[in-house]
């Protein structure tokens, strides 16, 4: 039943890993985290490979103050919140957007930020606020939405931004040096936009292998194989095994549009604090689209719920099942921290699919 090519790749992987010391690779992207678990590929990896989930889940890395600001804006009169589905359940200090909706706030799930612009156009009497979370792949859409709102002459469309850049977060983790990382499985779809050369600082400054991979089992296995090969060769290169979608130059059109609307800015990450030039904010010319300005809301301080290890989990310092709340007080039906909410959050993936896809399961009776 096992497709031959997967079997072949697993054999290759076992062969290249043979007699090597234990290695730890970070899959930066939350979609990789989910794909590894859902496809069962995680259970096929040799014992000397450990995967560490990185800070690549946009819902999870947004600081708590951001969630609170979103909820505060949601309770304003004549205001509509538009959001990607995952943000809905993230708990803030005073509840989640889902709870705000139950209390009567107008909170809608949209597929695309353009849907939010359309809604603003159709309802000039309401302020429409788009919850703009995401990495490079997603922020292009936010920039396009701002341009579209401008073209339509809308003064009732706003972004509440928590937009992040991948490479600065990788650099911050490496600079801190607390987590031992032997290489990065780089996010395929972020790389579609930024191109392979974006990872140059990781390779040059920290001499860590970077392999860009897609999300199918074959791609992920090949990515790991190439990382192991680099480790064995003591090499640190950027490899792109996802040339289907990732071009050498990235997507220059998208980059240009992003840069037209946003500018690099210091940005606050959950539990990691402020990382220099790790986010994207609206340029001065587009300030009128900034929800924080319009509603005069401040992002409050970041904090974790007592006992919640999300901050540590995000940085690969703690495994989900080692959090004292995991599967006991914190579960997808009652999430304490955001990692249990986002479908790509490490804790949610570990809960849903089993910690490593094997019988050493995540159910509470079996924990520890």
């Amino acid at each position: 039943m096992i497709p031959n090519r997967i079997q072949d790749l697993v054999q290759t992987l076992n062969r290249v890993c043979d007699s090597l010391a234990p290695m730890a690779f970070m899959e930066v992207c939350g979609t990789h985290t989910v794909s590894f678990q859902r496809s069962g590929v995680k259970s096929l990896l040799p014992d000397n490979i450990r995967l560490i989930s990185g800070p690549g889940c946009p819902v999870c890395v947004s600081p708590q103050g951001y969630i609170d600001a979103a909820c505060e804006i949601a309770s304003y009169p004549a205001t509509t919140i538009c959001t990607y589905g995952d943000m809905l359940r993230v708990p803030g200090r005073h509840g989640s957007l889902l709870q705000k909706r139950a209390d009567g706030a107008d909170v809608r799930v949209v597929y695309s930020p353009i849907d939010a612009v359309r809604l603003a156009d159709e309802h000039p009497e309401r302020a429409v606020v788009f919850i703009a979370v995401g990495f490079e792949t997603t922020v292009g859409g936010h920039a396009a939405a701002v341009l579209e709102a401008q073209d339509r002459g809308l003064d009732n469309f706003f972004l509440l931004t928590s937009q992040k850049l991948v490479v600065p977060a990788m650099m911050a983790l490496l600079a801190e040096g607390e987590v031992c990382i032997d290489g990065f499985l780089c996010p395929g779809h972020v790389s579609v936009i930024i191109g392979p050369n974006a990872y140059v600082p990781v390779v040059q400054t920290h001499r860590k292998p970077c392999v860009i991979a897609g999300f199918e089992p074959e791609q992920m296995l090949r990515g790991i194989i190439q990382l192991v090969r680099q480790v064995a060769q003591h090499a640190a290169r950027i490899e792109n095994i996802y040339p289907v979608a990732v071009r050498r130059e990235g997507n220059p059109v998208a980059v240009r549009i992003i840069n037209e609307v946003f500018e690099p800015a210091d940005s606050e990450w959950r539990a990691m604090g402020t990382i220099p030039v790790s986010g994207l904010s609206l340029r001065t010319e587009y300030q009128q689209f900034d929800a924080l300005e319009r509603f005069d809301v401040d992002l409050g301080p970041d904090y974790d719920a007592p006992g919640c290890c999300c901050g540590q989990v995000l940085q690969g310092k703690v495994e989900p099942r080692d959090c004292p709340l995991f599967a006991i007080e914190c579960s997808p039906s009652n999430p304490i921290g955001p990692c249990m909410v986002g479908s790509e959050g490490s804790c949610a993936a570990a809960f849903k699919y089993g910690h490593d896809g094997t019988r050493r399961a995540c159910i509470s009776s079996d924990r520890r």
Partner: protein
Amino acid sequence: MCLAVPGKLIDVKRSPDSTSNIATGTVDFQGTRVDANLIFTPEAKEGDWVLVHAGFAIQQISETEAIETWRYLDVGEFKEELPEFEDTRPTGEWR
């Protein structure tokens, strides 16, 4: 962090309610269709394959490559050697 799915562009149109003149297209994912904004793939035309994320086509891809991406879903059997990959050495950086 970013779910993107390849689909085939079956028609390209100027958005009727947009003044921006940016094309949108209908993308077919094996029977399910969605309107995608083509601002980041200005050269995409009918019949091309695109990778779609949150309502935006973020890259054009070749048809064979697209089918390759879907192929893992349909359990086929073949064997191939792992190619040696290109070493993309630094030439510049994001912005």
